[in-house]
C-alpha cells in the first residue's frame, strides 16, 4: 500500500510539474512577444 501511495503521489507530482512548465513556457513566450511588439511600436512612430 505504501509504495503504491508513493507511486501515485510521485506520478501526480510529475504531471503537475509538466503542466507547470507548459504554463510557464506559454507565459514566457507571451511576454517576449509583447516586448518585441512594443519595441516595434516604439520604433515605428520614431521613423514617422
Amino acid at each position, binding site marked *: 500500500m505504501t509504495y503504491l*501511495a508513493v507511486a501515485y503521489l510521485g506520478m501526480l507530482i510529475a504531471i503537475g510539474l*509538466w503542466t507547470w512548465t507548459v504554463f510557464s513556457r506559454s507565459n514566457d*513566450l507571451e511576454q517576449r512577444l509583447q516586448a518585441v511588439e512594443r519595441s516595434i511600436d516604439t520604433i515605428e512612430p520614431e521613423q514617422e
Partner: protein
Amino acid sequence: MTKRLAETILLLGFIGIGTTLGLAFLKAPSVSINAFESPEAQRIFYWHVPAAWAAFIAFGFLFVGSALWFFKRSDLGWRMHVAGAEAGLATGLMTVWSGMVWGSAEWGVPWDWTDVRLNTFGLLTFLAMFLVLGRQSQPDGVETRDTFSTFGLFGFVLVPVTYVATRLWQIRHPGPVIGGGDSGSLNGEMALILLLGAISFTLFIVGHMLMSMRITSLEQRLESIQEAMDKV
C-alpha cells in the same frame, strides 16, 4: 480565447485525475486475493489504463500531424506533430512506468518482452522522446519538419512490426506466468472510476496538446517578427 479554453480543459482534467486517483486509492473495492498475486497493485490500473488511452490519442495526433505535414505541408499538421510528440512522450512514460510498477508487483519482473502492448508502448515512447529532444536541438525549417515527420510516420510502421516481432517472440519463448483469475470482469464501481479516469486523462491530454499547439504558433510568430526585425 483558445488559451482560456485550453487552460480550463487542462485544469479540469488535472482535477479529474486527482479525484480518480483518490477514489482508486480509498474507494475502489479490493479484488479477491486469488485473482492476483499482488491484489493491491491492481489499483495501479486506475492510472495505467487511462494513461494508455491518453497515449493512444496523443500518438494518433502525432501520426495524423506527421502525415499532414509530409503530404500536404500543412502548418497545422506540424503543430499537431509537435503537440502529439510531447503528449505522447509524457503519457507513454506514464503508461510504461505504471506498467512496470504493476509488472514487478504482479509478475515479479518489471518488463516482459512477450507482451505486445508493453513493447509497442515502450518503442513508441522512445520514438516520441527522439522526436521531442531531436526537434529541440534543431532550428525550425522545412528540413527539420520533413525529417521528423518522416520519423513520425515511421511510428505507423513500428506498431505492426512490434506486434509481429512480439508475437513471434511469444511463440518461441514462453513468457512469465501471469496470475490467472477472473480479471476480465469489472464491478460497477470499478468501471465508474475507470471511466472517470479515462475522461479526465482525455481532457488533460487534449488540454495539453491545445496548449502545446498554441506555444508552437507563438514561437513561430516570435520567430517571424524577429526575422523581420533582422532585415530592418
